[in-house]
């Protein structure tokens, strides 16, 4: 099952770094050693959440990471793995991917009713990609439906903002509007940000066409960004 589309697309690769909670299906008694073998030189590969455990009676740390686990507790710690490793392990039945709390049914009604106030970037940078993958894994059509409806409502606002010129001069009234606009744009997921950028370009192209200048030869992006000029006699 192909989850990520284009193998060499940078955005697909970055989306694969999103973390999801998993449950171990195989026994891993030496979890910290396991992690230290696999981690890179800096921090650990896995993020382990111990908020559900109570008091820790025994802890073990690796030299590289800040992982603690309680070997006396029967309940296993919650583990978060990046998608690029969680999916193949899930397919091999070494782990079981669990639905993240932020994608559970609890939130679907909020997505549909109050779509434009949700700060997606704070939930996941690649919110829709992660949601689509989770929907595929769990065969959850409800998730797809809720995300689609949210995207449609947010897209209406995104395309309106893309058409608006940026307000340069602020007074007491408009400065508030501009702050909300900027805040909304800063909290878009990467898919929405791409749509916003395309909307802005379209708006610009429309203005050029309106001014009967669509046949005007434009300076290339390279020369705009490169400031020096050559002098040749």
């Amino acid at each position, binding site marked *: 099952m192909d989850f990520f589309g284009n*193998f*060499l*697309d*940078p955005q697909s*690769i*970055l989306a694969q*770094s999103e*973390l999801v909670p998993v449950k171990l299906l*195989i*026994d*891993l008694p030496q979890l910290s050693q*396991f992690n230290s*073998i*696999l*981690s*890179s*030189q*800096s*921090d*650990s*590969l*896995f*993020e382990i959440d111990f908020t559900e455990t109570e008091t820790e009676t025994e802890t073990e740390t690796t030299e590289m990471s800040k992982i603690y686990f309680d070997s006396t507790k029967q309940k296993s710690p919650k583990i*978060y*793995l*990046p998608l*690029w*490793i969680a999916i*193949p*392990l899930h397919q*091999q039945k*070494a782990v079981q991917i669990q639905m993240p709390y932020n994608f559970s049914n609890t939130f679907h009604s909020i997505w549909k009713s109050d779509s434009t106030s949700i700060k997606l970037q704070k939930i996941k940078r690649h919110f829709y990609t992660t949601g689509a993958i989770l929907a595929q894994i769990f065969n959850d059509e409800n998730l797809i439906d809720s995300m689609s409806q949210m995207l449609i409502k947010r897209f209406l606002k995104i395309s309106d903002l893309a058409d608006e010129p940026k307000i340069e001069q602020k007074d007491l009234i408009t400065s508030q509007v501009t702050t909300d606009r900027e805040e909304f744009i800063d909290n878009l997921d990467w898919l929405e940000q791409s749509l916003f950028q395309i909307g802005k370009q379209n708006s610009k192209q429309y203005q050029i066409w309106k*001014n*009967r*200048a*669509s*046949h*005007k*030869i*434009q*300076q*290339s*992006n*390279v*020369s*705009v*960004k*490169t*400031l*020096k*000029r050559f*002098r*040749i*006699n």
Partner: protein
Amino acid sequence: MNTEIAVELLKELQRTTEQLPKYDQSLVQKVIEETNRKQEQLHEMVKQKKYEDTISKTKLHILNYMIERNEQILTSYHLERGKKLIEMRWDFGSVIPNQIRENITQNEESFHHEYCQILEDYMNSLDLDLTQDHQPPSNDLYIEVRVLKDYGQIFIDGGQSIVELKKNSRLFLRRVDAENLIREGVLEHIISN
């Protein structure tokens, strides 16, 4: 927080405001060293036949996924840089500005040169300049331009005439002669409504 040092390469490419950021030799080297280390661990486990129980098999699989992941990211990084160089040929011409030349490796420079050569050979075989007319052209054979910088003399009309480009002067030139200089930022196309 997961930490993949290789992912930083792609994030660098995304974050940059320049046409092409400096090739991050040190980070690429770190990724290659990390991949080699994982490869050695994998070979060691296979050599010692440590793959019979489920835990060891899982470790082997994970090592393999990490190696593939690093290779995927390195390939994507180099491919994206290659695409930007190709885009530059179509956008700007076959000369690489000095600011960008400082940011690319020798391999990338020779890639760019070979690509330009292939494109030239192809265009010569068609007797067409495919890099002209990025926007749909109007019916005007001649266009009005303003000179933005002193540029010296250029050949026009297929090499038959010479014209001096002095700053702030306005000229009527053939579209095919002016287009490349406009894209380079030497001339500005003036539209009169």
